[in-house]
């Protein structure tokens, strides 16, 4: 589903990713971990196509040219902190944006689409906020709205960049429940997180990063929390 071959990426003269090789199979829940500045978010941005690698190949759905498959990809950015709280957009309008790529140009939203919004908001316990301005919701609720936007298009590849940062335990619980549901539907999930519990409980594959390189790729069984903390607090 996702394959990176010898991928490198630099910001001006700072190397952010160095010779990354990895493979994520269809239906896997892959977690990317590592200390701040280790290149996790850059790696996700390269997988998503936000950044073009300086070197190497990114294959999605087995192809180097991903343009035809983009509608099957959903992305949940680290948005809660950077999102402008004054942006005049309702919860319903935000979730509908997730359907824009599927609708294509020139087509409006149908009553079927609005029904889908209701269903997903119900699932995420957000239906009472449907007409509310997004910025008026709490951080956890906003993050759930972003997740609803990502899931409404029923993606085959779901990419999440630190979705649990700054959210309440209820939102976290709902998020993991939904991720497991998606996994059961054979959705491939790539998630950057610091949440040890999630790493140990849900991950099929753990990619451990440091200084722009992959230190190890292992399963949840082999993952050592002690070793992870060592990497974390070494500096």
């Amino acid at each position, binding site marked *: 589903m996702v394959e990176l071959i010898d991928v490198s990426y630099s910001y001006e003269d700072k190397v952010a990713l160095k010779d990354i090789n990895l493979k994520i199979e269809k239906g896997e829940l892959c977690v990317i971990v590592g200390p701040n500045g280790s290149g996790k978010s850059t790696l996700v*941005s390269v997988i998503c196509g*936000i950044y073009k690698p300086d070197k190497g190949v990114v294959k999605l759905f087995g192809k180097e040219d991903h343009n035809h498959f983009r509608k099957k990809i959903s992305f949940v950015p680290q948005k809660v902190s950077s999102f402008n709280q004054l*942006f*005049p957009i*309702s919860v319903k309008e935000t979730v509908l944006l997730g359907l*824009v790529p599927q609708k294509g140009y020139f087509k409006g939203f149908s009553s079927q689409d609005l029904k889908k919004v209701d269903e997903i908001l119900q699932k995420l316990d957000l239906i009472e906020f449907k007409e509310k301005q997004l910025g008026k919701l709490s951080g956890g609720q906003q993050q759930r709205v972003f997740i609803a936007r990502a899931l409404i298009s029923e993606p085959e590849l779901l990419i999440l960049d630190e979705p649990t940062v700054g959210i309440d335990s209820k939102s976290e619980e709902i998020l993991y429940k939904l991720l497991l549901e998606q996994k059961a539907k054979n959705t491939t999930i790539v998630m950057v997180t610091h949440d040890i519990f999630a790493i140990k409980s849900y991950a099929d594959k753990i990619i451990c990063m440091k200084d722009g390189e992959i230190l190890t790729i292992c399963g949840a069984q082999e993952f050592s929390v002690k070793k992870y903390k060592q990497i974390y607090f070494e500096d």
Partner: protein
Amino acid sequence: MLKYTFMQRAFIAGIIISIIAPLIGNYIILKRFSQIGDTLSHSAILGVALGLLLGINPLFGALAVTIFFALALERLRRCFKGFAEISLSIITMTSLAFSAIVFSRIKSSASVMNYLFGSIIAISKMDLILILMVAIPTLTLILLFRKELLYICFDEDSALVSGINVKFLNLILNVLVALVIGISLRIVGGFLISALLVMPGAVAMKISSNFSNLQRYSILVSLFSVVLGIIASFYLNISPGGSIVSILIFIYLMVEVLKGRVR
């Protein structure tokens, strides 16, 4: 007042512009790129100057030059990724420098003033036809790309990831701003057109909790200000650009005060 043909034309042109300007202006506010209005209005002034110098309809000149700089802007913006305001400054200064040179070669200053601050008596039949010819496709494009434009304003990265052609839409947005500026020159004038793009949205943002309301309220504010501004211009013999923008500022202040009281 409506028995005068020039007033009929002013009202028709004013109403068209007052609907289109905030519709497109709201996107540039949400993209935090409001300054583009100011920048391209300077390009429009250069277009007017070139039109007057070459003896062609200055509106044609304004439209052509503004579209050219709108396209150049997108290219420059990519060169200064993350520092978009540099590209705006470059285009503003380039337009002003060339305008200064071209204006110094033009003898009549009266017609120049009309394009800088707007005029209700200056709208010819040809201008009105041109405004309509540009307004219809502009409005169509805004409506066709409504949801995609909102997506790129709200979250450009996620839009890109899921296959929205962000580069193309940014270009379309720039061109739409250029077109709106081009056709609004006659009524509001080059110096004040960016206010018509931004101020109705600024007012509407204060009272809107969703995008649909933002669009609705900004059109209402814009329509009210333009119609009242044209009437004030007729009776008080002042430039319509000045009266329209003054009304917009007054509405903005009123909303701020009322919102403060509600709080």
